[in-house]
């Protein structure tokens, strides 16, 4: 029963879904919010990238991570290559560590997403310090919690297209 359902679902072509979801997430990334709230904006693009890389490994790999990273850098006016570097490193490490697993459950993905957001924030923090950018530390870590809450929503919206 489950297998039959699985087969029916995985025949979909995820290309359109990937493109639409990237556009939708980029809108969410720049949606105007007040200064106080915008510090806690979830890292939509990172979560989306992670979802596709984990759930559609045949379609999305290192270069998908690289492309979304550069796209995010340009969108946010961040130092070019900062998000890209972080995305590529994260993708490689996550794919490398989960290479033995056949199927990832939602719980696994959620834990991975938490660790990934943590790693991404840490990496951008280090890169920003190296780049001489100053900012408040408490604001920097706010997306951790909101991203943790947003990932399940994103997962269930895109679940149809996962393997």
């Amino acid at each position: 029963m489950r297998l039959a359902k699985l087969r029916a679902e995985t025949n979909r072509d995820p290309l359109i879904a990937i493109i639409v979801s990237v556009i939708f997430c980029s809108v969410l990334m720049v949606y105007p919010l007040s200064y106080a709230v915008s510090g806690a904006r979830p890292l939509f693009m990172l979560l989306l990238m992670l979802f596709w890389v984990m759930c559609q490994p045949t379609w999305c790999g290192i270069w998908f991570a690289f492309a979304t990273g550069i796209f995010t850098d340009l969108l946010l006016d961040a130092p070019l290559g900062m998000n890209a570097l972080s995305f590529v490193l994260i993708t490689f490490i996550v794919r490398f560590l989960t290479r033995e697993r056949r199927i990832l459950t939602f719980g696994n993905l959620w834990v991975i997403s938490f660790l990934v957001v943590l790693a991404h924030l840490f990496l951008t923090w280090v890169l920003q310090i190296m780049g001489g950018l100053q900012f408040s530390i408490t604001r920097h870590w706010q997306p951790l919690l909101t991203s943790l809450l947003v990932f399940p929503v994103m997962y269930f919206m895109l679940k149809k297209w996962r393997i």
Partner: protein
Amino acid sequence: MQTQLFSRQPPSFRSFIIAVITCLVVLFFNWRMPHVIQPARDVLYAAYNPIYALASYPVLSREWLNQQTKSEAQLRRENTAMQAELLQAQVRLQKLSELSAENTRLRGLLDTPLIIDGRMEIAEVIGTDADPLRHIIVINRGSSSQLKVGQTVLDDKGIMGQIINVNSHSSRIMLLSDKEHSLSVRLEHTGMRAIVSGTGDLGHLKMEYVPTSANVKVGEKVYSSGLGAHFPAGYLVGTVSKVNRHNSGEFAQIEVIPAAQLAGGHHVVVLFSDSLAMEQPHATR
């Protein structure tokens, strides 16, 4: 199907290494030679315009809905209030035109070219920068309205900031409170020159390089001086709110509260007259 299920192979090292090296090269270029990256950024900003437009759509449509759902009584009330306001403004304007004419006459005597009323463009704030560490807002006018980088942006209370990027239908404005922003000012009473810089806090600016011995009082108004030919002279920047004099330091620590509504303004005015910027501050000692 089967190939997909068992396709979770370890990722290829080669593409990973290439991607990381590309990232580092791009980062290096961005760090050392930003002018190489800048044209690409500008082109892509234009390409992102639909995304920014889409993102600002809910904000704009809320405005529109507010307009549509106003009741007639409310509109009438507003109309009456506005007519009264208009009348007052017109009376003031008469006086102003009188003063302006007088000023022109006097300036003619002094032989200094000056235009008092420059053209201005009213724009709407449609967004803030996604980077929470920068104080940058986005307005809905761009190069299609002849806006240029460096123009001054005001609201009804005072100077807000300046334009730093212009796209076809939007521009980005750096606010006074951005950490990287500074402008040259003069004090109301003494006419002393100083520099006001942003602190990263919307409600505070700091005044720098004012000697400890300087005569600065709390509550004094701070105007733009026009030095540096970037901001026009004579517009209100803020009010001195705190003066800290330490005997150890050479300079006093002075806080200024910005006059413009940096946190909450909705409409802004982009100034076109830059002839005022050529004017020297009229310091009366």
